[in-house]
């Protein structure tokens, strides 16, 4: 493993790790300089957290504790304690999203994958808080956990992909904590909500920001499926803010979503 200097700056380190069937990137900053050697021990610990989560929670590996649990070969009590912990968090997320995020939708196999990615990235981030850095960003396939900023007073800015024209950016946000984005592309933009019989407009992209990436992930999934009803719900949820981007390029966001339009930011 190695962490490399960004070409343009001696104050940023970048690392890319293949894990959990995807790629997770690390960016850390210290404007008074940082060496890869100094940071390596912290990075190793952070990366180990992700690989451990993959080992326990992978639904693709048949011998993972979660896979065994799904097949009924072991009980929850026999699984590593973090399995019960994650399922408990999933139950909370399900309740908070009023059932729109639901890892139990398929019986014979609870699948917390959507939560685990964010949860493990958030846990991984905790390994970096004592490192000699002013801020860190862990990006797990488009879902981001972070603390700090470019320096003590400059927060990170994160681009939000334009779902109409990826990978171009639609806008940016001033990052405080985590942000997760879920997306559905669907031709024709009406869908009948089976619970109300009403037509609902669907967003192409749903982004949720807040302190915890696991919950952001759950909210973003719920928002992508549930639409405006969920946006309203998030508006009334402390510490979490959301943005949806629609097929006609219109956008909606909660009142405190920290949006920055890129055209004006240069």
């Amino acid at each position, binding site marked *: 493993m190695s962490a490399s200097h960004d070409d343009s700056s001696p104050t940023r380190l970048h690392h890319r790790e293949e894990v959990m*069937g995807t*790629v997770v*990137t690390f960016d850390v900053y210290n404007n008074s300089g940082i060496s890869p050697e100094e940071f390596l021990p912290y990075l190793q610990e952070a990366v180990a957290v992700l690989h451990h989560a993959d080992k326990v929670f992978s639904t693709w590996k048949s011998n993972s504790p979660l896979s065994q649990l799904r097949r009924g070969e072991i009980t929850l009590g026999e699984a590593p304690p973090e399995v019960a912990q994650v399922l408990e968090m999933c139950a909370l997320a*399900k309740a908070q999203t009023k*059932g729109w995020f639901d890892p139990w*939708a*398929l019986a014979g196999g609870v*699948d917390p994958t959507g939560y685990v990615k964010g949860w493990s990235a958030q846990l991984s981030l905790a390994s970096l808080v004592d490192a000699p850095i002013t801020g860190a960003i862990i*990006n797990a*396939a*488009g879902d*981001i956990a972070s603390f700090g900023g470019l320096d003590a007073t400059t927060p*990170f*800015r*994160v*681009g939000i992909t*334009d*779902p*109409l*024209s*990826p*990978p*171009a*950016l639609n*806008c*940016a946000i001033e*990052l405080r904590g985590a942000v*997760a*984005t*879920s*997306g*559905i*592309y669907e031709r*024709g933009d009406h869908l009948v909500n*089976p*619970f109300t019989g009403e*037509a609902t*407009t*669907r967003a192409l*992209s749903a982004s949720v920001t807040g302190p915890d990436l696991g919950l952001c*992930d759950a909210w973003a999934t719920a928002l*992508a*499926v*549930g*639409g*405006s009803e969920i*946006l*309203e719900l998030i508006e*009334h949820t402390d510490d979490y803010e959301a943005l949806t981007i*629609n*097929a*006609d*390029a*219109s*956008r*909606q*966001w*909660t009142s405190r979503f920290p949006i920055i339009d*890129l055209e*004006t930011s240069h």
Partner: protein
Amino acid sequence: MKRSPIVVVGTMAGLFGVMSFHTTPAKITLGSVATPTSTGSSTSSATSTTASAPTTTSPPKKRTSPPASSRSTSSPTTSAGSASSSTTPATTAPVTTTTAAPATTTTASSNLAQTVTGPSVNYYFGLLSVKVTVAGKKITNVTIASLSDGGNYRSQQIDQASIPILEQEAMQAQNANIQSVSGASYTSAGFQLSLQDALKKVGIK
């Protein structure tokens, strides 16, 4: 930026054969049926809308962001409701995909087998959607309905989950004001997203 193509090829070659889809989970039975509370319709109020319709129809390429929308009014969220939604969306997908024809739902007590296709999930180089067949409340089959990348079908054995990340890094490197990029990517979570939506359409989620 100029190294990106090489990196992409290398990564795809590296992943080839390592990852595989679960195209046919053996047997899935449906468990607890979630019943999201259906709040009364919040009829839509002013939505913040941008005027320009997107025009790109080609595969991913650089495009300036849509014009800044008017800020949403100080009141809470605007409903994404009916106001502006009847406009036909400009097609942006590189390829036509099947979407679920039956947007209507059947009551849960039906025992007729029905097949529904979930929405196409954009994974940057194309679209993926999941097809689910249910009999009554029982899921009898789950498959990938479509997987496309702009006309060239790729092997389902190739997991392209890393491509969006490489794309995001490229975007990040291009923009000095941005330290990272958040976007939906095709992952197993994307698979689940499409699946849950399909289940919703048949009224069992």
